[in-house]
């Protein structure tokens, strides 16, 4: 059933009796062309683009819990393409372009809201770096504008412009950045994939890989063995645990990132504002809550919760740049476990095991990458060669000395 204003009108007149579940709940078949492990945003997007763009319909998505129960439901919903390096920026710009057409494409209201993202500048050196970044963005076809203090005062008069340590001297602004309703992304992709024949199997945990002569030929699950010509891991946050079942050791550590939301307020924040110097960023949800966060906690963890020192650090950052936030009450806070890679950049690649593919290492930036990650992973699975925009995301790049280190921190995952 196609969703439209007309369908709402028609259902309204007929007692809303015609609505159907957005996807089926099929039993797993004995074999598939492609099995995707992980029913989060990236896994569902991969299934959707496999079926829609590459004509591969005999696909299963296996999800341990319920659909979208991982980081697609635990992020701060920001989309942007403001990267510097060649390996990254064309990929993220591809993602932003896909976001722009996504709702029409999969016929689902994901509330894509391009209200702009602003990264604040506090020194001459930082301005130089951001001007360079802005030029790199524009070279990739993205948009970037350098703002002066007066421009920012008009957009966000509540910031602390004359802060003694970090006075606001400007910002780099990407007008096409913004936020998206994150759960709807998972649901929209799931519905679109299901319509095209993909089996979405929830409560089905992968417990092992079936290997024959060094080739992966299927998976063992809590709902029985399933064969597949290709098995695709897509479980960022738990990548090391799943890869370990195949005997792989990854360039990844698992870390927790916390996020926070205040009580609902009237519209006040014009998009996304980031205060990198103080480890704080904020936007406002459509319900009115201020959604904000900061840095990862910094120690290895698989617990979906963090500790109080980082809560304090994030709130101090907020008070420093935006003192009025002190009047808002904190409503909820939560944590998500993420793959922190050795250079802060992700992987979309084959593994050394034939028939087994890997997508992970998204650090704290996986949400914005969802459409392009799915598209590029589908390309790799369908054609066995990387998508032109994802050629740098290889698993062996450290061995070759080809890190994609946006932050210049080296092989220290908790500093990216």
């Amino acid at each position, binding site marked *: 059933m196609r969703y439209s204003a007309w369908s709402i009108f028609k259902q309204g007149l007929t007692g809303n009796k015609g609505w159907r579940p957005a996807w089926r709940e099929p039993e797993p078949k004995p074999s598939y062309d492609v099995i995707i492990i992980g029913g989060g945003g990236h896994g569902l997007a991969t299934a959707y683009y496999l079926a829609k763009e590459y004509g591969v319909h005999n696909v299963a998505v296996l999800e341990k819990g319920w659909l979208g129960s991982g980081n697609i439901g635990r992020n701060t919903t920001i989309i942007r393409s403001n990267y510097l390096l060649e390996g990254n920026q064309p990929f993220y710009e591809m993602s932003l372009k896909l976001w722009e057409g996504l709702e029409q494409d999969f016929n689902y209201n994901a509330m894509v809201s391009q209200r702009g993202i602003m990264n604040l500048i506090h020194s001459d050196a930082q301005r130089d770096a951001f001007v360079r970044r802005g030029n790199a963005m524009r070279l990739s076809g993205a948009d970037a504008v350098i703002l002066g203090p007066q421009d920012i005062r008009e957009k966000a008069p509540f910031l602390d412009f004359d802060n003694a340590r970090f006075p606001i001297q400007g910002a780099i602004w990407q007008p096409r950045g913004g936020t998206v309703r994150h759960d709807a992304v998972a649901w929209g992709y799931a519905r679109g994939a299901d319509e095209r024949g993909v089996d979405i199997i929830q409560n089905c945990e992968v417990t092992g890989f079936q290997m024959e002569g060094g080739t992966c030929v299927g998976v063992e699950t809590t709902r029985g063995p399933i064969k597949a010509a290709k098995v695709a891991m897509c479980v960022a946050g*738990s990548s*090391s*645990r799943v890869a370990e079942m195949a005997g792989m*050791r*990854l*360039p*990844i*550590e*698992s870390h927790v990132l916390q996020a926070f939301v205040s009580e609902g307020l009237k519209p006040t924040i014009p998009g996304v504002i980031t205060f990198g110097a103080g480890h704080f960023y904020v936007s406002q949800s459509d319900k009115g809550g201020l959604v904000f966060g900061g840095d990862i906690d*910094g*120690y*290895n*963890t*698989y*617990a979906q919760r963090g*500790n109080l*020192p980082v809560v304090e650090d994030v709130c101090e950052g907020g008070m420093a740049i935006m003192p009025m936030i002190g009047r808002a009450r904190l409503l909820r806070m939560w944590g998500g476990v993420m793959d922190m890679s*050795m250079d802060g950049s992700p992987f979309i690649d084959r593994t050394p095991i034939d028939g087994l593919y890997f997508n992970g290492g998204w650090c704290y930036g996986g949400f914005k990458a969802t459409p392009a990650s799915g598209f590029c992973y589908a390309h790799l699975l369908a054609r066995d060669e990387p998508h032109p925009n994802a050629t740098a995301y290889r698993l062996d790049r*450290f*061995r070759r000395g080809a890190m994609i280190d946006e932050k210049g921190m080296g*092989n*220290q*995952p*908790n500093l990216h």
Partner: protein
Amino acid sequence: MIINHPLLGPRDAAEFTVLGDASLIHRPDGLTASDEDMHYYAYLRDNPAGLHRELWYHEQGDRSWLVVTRNTLTHDIEKVELARDVARAEGRSK
């Protein structure tokens, strides 16, 4: 998290910085190790769900390095040792 420092007693984890897996103590000799060994040491991690031995540095305290055995599923700390004792016991000379 509270880390029970072997010399100073219980200290807030916020006083420390984390380096990572305690296997980093066993750095290969850069002049003789193969590329493969250096890659394995510098870039690959076990990243277990459960008990994890890791290096913590008491930056806001006595500047000692500790090996903390911690559960990555619960954040419970099982054991805290001085890294120099661990390194010596595991055969490193200094």
